């Protein structure tokens, strides 16, 4: 089918490629962890975005790195790597967490799922096998890379539960937020976690790569009259900003990717102070540095910025234009000013269709990160730098009542 030399240059395909490729009409492909994945299934992303917020959007998230951590010391290893208290996890519970180097700077973030007493699944954005192995010295634990042999789908949106209830053997009504349970879907064994990257009601479905296509087909069939839409990662990118969720190497630089110390971020700076459990016993990676930062306070904080629409209109009106807002999330650094002094920067900004607001994830220096602070964000209007006023807000921007219900 493919010539060997060609395949050398080919990106990895996810287990759903056969289904998603014919649907990807504009050939809008994106690269994700070495895989070719759908950016959008249409020329615009409105339909996919609104499926997330109003119906059900089916997203192929197979490129996530997945590891199985098993053995008597499995909990001990994850408790050492992450700042959360893994020993307190119930079976079937999912933790979201970042993890740090020993200087307390974020290396990556992902989820830990307790599959059993001595068995966990870890997801990450970056390859983590070496880090896991380095931290497992002296422990009785086995670490298995499952990235390629497992496929993953994210079904997000207010109708996602109804869709799954229709195609799963066990109903999803009792599955609580950030819990996981085994199930059968389309005749295949899967595990379903109530998690996602959109801030909406949503689930992630984990399965053997070999079961990928039947599971996709079953969900699509079940969702047909619930308005299910295959969704690319561009629409998800808008939704995740609304949900106040950040992305590695966009909103923070992984400590092992940073060229200089100033590029690194701590969990406290990224608003993940709630994941840092300094009271848990024993050593964990970064403890010393995190204790110090907790004591002395952080220099930075990730917060939200809502740009005033009137201010935008005014700036554009100066050149005779209505506000020009890009149709996707913009991953570019924009200076944030206060009293003409730079006090931080935005790392991702987007138009929020549901809030009807221009919003940004911004990193502000102390003390400018307090909610209510008035700042200005740099925008480029007809090739000229302008500043649009806005207000610092707590994250998330958008949280529907059904997210955790």
């Amino acid at each position, binding site marked *: 089918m493919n010539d060997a030399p060609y395949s050398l240059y080919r990106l990895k395909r996810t287990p759903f490629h056969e289904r998603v490729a014919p649907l990807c009409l504009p050939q809008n492909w994106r690269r994700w962890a070495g895989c070719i994945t759908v950016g959008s299934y249409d020329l615009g992303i409105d339909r996919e975005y609104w499926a997330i917020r109003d119906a059900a959007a089916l997203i192929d998230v197979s490129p996530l790195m997945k590891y199985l951590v098993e053995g008597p010391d499995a909990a*001990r290893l994850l408790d050492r790597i992450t700042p959360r208290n893994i020993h307190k996890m119930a079976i079937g519970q999912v933790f979201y967490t970042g993890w740090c180097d020993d200087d307390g700077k974020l290396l990556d973030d992902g989820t830990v799922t307790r599959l059993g007493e001595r068995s966990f699944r870890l997801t990450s954005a970056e390859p983590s096998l070496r880090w896991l192995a380095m931290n497992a*010295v*002296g*422990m009785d634990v086995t670490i298995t890379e499952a990235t390629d042999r497992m496929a993953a789908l994210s079904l997000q949106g207010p109708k996602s539960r109804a869709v799954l209830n229709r195609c799963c053997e066990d109903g999803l009504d009792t599955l609580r937020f950030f819990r996981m349970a085994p199930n059968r879907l389309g005749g295949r064994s899967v595990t379903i976690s109530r998690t996602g990257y959109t801030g909406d009601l949503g689930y992630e479905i984990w399965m053997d790569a070999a079961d990928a296509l039947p599971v996709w087909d079953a969900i699509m069939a079940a969702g047909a009259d619930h308005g299910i839409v295959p969704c690319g990662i561009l629409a998800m990118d808008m939704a995740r900003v609304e949900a106040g969720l950040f992305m590695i190497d966009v909103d923070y630089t992984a400590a092992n990717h940073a060229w200089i110390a100033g590029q690194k971020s701590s969990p406290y700076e990224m608003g993940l102070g709630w994941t840092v459990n300094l009271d848990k016993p024993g*050593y964990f*990676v970064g403890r010393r540095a995190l204790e110090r930062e907790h004591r002395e306070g952080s220099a930075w904080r990730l917060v939200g910025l809502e740009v005033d629409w009137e201010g935008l209109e005014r700036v554009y009106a100066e050149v005779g234009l209505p506000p020009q807002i890009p149709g996707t999330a913009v991953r570019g650094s924009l200076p944030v000013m206060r009293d003409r002094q730079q006090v931080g920067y935005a790392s991702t900004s987007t138009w929020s269709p549901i809030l009807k607001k221009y919003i940004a994830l911004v990193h502000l220096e102390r003390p400018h990160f307090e909610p209510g602070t008035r700042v200005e964000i740099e925008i480029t209007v007809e090739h000229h730098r302008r500043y649009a006023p806005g207000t610092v807000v707590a994250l998330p921007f958008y949280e529907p009542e059904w997210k955790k219900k």
Partner: protein
Amino acid sequence: MANPDIIVIGAGHNGLVAATYLARAGRKVLVLERREVPGGQLAGDARIGAFATRPIHAGGQLRADIVRDLGLANHGLASEASADAGAYLAPLPDGRMLRLAASTDAATLDSIRALSPRDAERWPEFVRFMNSAAAYLEAGQATPMPRLANADLLEQGRPLAALAWKLRRLGRTDMFRFMRVLTMSAVEFAEEWFESEPLRAAIGAVAIHGVSIGSMSAGGGYVLIHNWLNRGGLAHRGTRGGAQDMVNALVAALRARGGELRTSAPVAQVLVERQVVRGVRLESGEEILAGTVLSDADPRRTLLGLVGAPELPPEFVWQAQSIKMRGSVAKVHVLTDGQHGIPGGTVVIAPTTKYLERAYDAAKYGQVSEHPYLELTHSGDVVSIHYQFAPYSLRGGDWQAMRATLERRAIATVSERFAGFRDSIREVRSITPFDLEQTWALTEGDLNHGQLILDQLLFMRPIPGWSDHRTPVDGLYLCGSGVHGGGGVSGVSGRNAARRVLRVSARG
């Protein structure tokens, strides 16, 4: 002892030196030794054989300032090296003997002149340079090394500047010679000085002694200076009364200052809570708490064994795993009827520099040298053979199976030079690298707690950035041979560690 201020793990000579310095400063010190006897490598083991309770080292002396500071002369230690140290002797192919003293006595010059008049002329200058280089190294070992990325120039800058000034004061010629010799191989260094092959080989042997490098490996020059410093020349020079006197004096000095020594008290675990040391747990289950713990065990054993990797930062664990131990020395003790025919002093079997390199070649491939480099010493009927190379990791075999081969090759190699040796043998007992690990708790049988190679010296010993005896665990210090100043018998790392601890506590 209830509630000691400080626990020292291991009663090797460095542990005892550190403990006695600390006791002298008024601390309540408890030394815990896993074996029945104190002394570490200076104490033999009765299980190896009734006669073979000899120390691993043929000689050894504590630095003069340590003997003085701890008042060891009052506890039975002769303050000077024994007078009958003997010479450094190399049998020549024609049956004669090359006889070298670390001085310029007539016998030495005559012996060299028989091989090369030119070499005899150069010998006095060589001895002068080596003594000067050794004295400089001694000053370097007494100087705290900077912590690389975390260097505290306010604290460490002055001693380092003083050390740099001392280097300059060696004079232009010696300064450059010294800097060059550190990285040179034994062969390169010896060839630069001398033309006679037996002389080059005899010197080259000391430049690889105890370390897993060959005569053509970089860094032999450093080892030569290091060993010259510890020996006081080429020949071993024990303290009068031998190793046991040294151990007895240290133990007596410790006790005289209120320190306590417990033998047969193996530590199973260093207790750590949130990167702060709390004390130790013995194998018996007994817990002893203390705010400061020094470990005389090697760094790998201390950090990955007694503390445990789970309590340490991952990058540090990676580095601790990467410390090169690689022991490749075995000892063969031979009980004879006294008619062994081996002269007193230190006898080296290393006919050529290529012979040394070939002996090392075997070790590279996990084999025991068929024609080993040997160093022989004897006291009365017992001949002790230092056998190099006998690598810890054997390819396709284990040390129980190789023991007989080791002993046979040692005896054959000695018998070739000393005809009466074989018939004089009554009993043979050997110590393999495996025994060194099992009985003396030396990881991979490394006598020096980590190879004395260039990337593991000075500010890089035991781990770059951690040369100042500290560890990522507050209150836990390393005082054994594996830290800066260590390698061989000198007490330097024990002394330095105690100073470090006292300096930290002085700061509050």
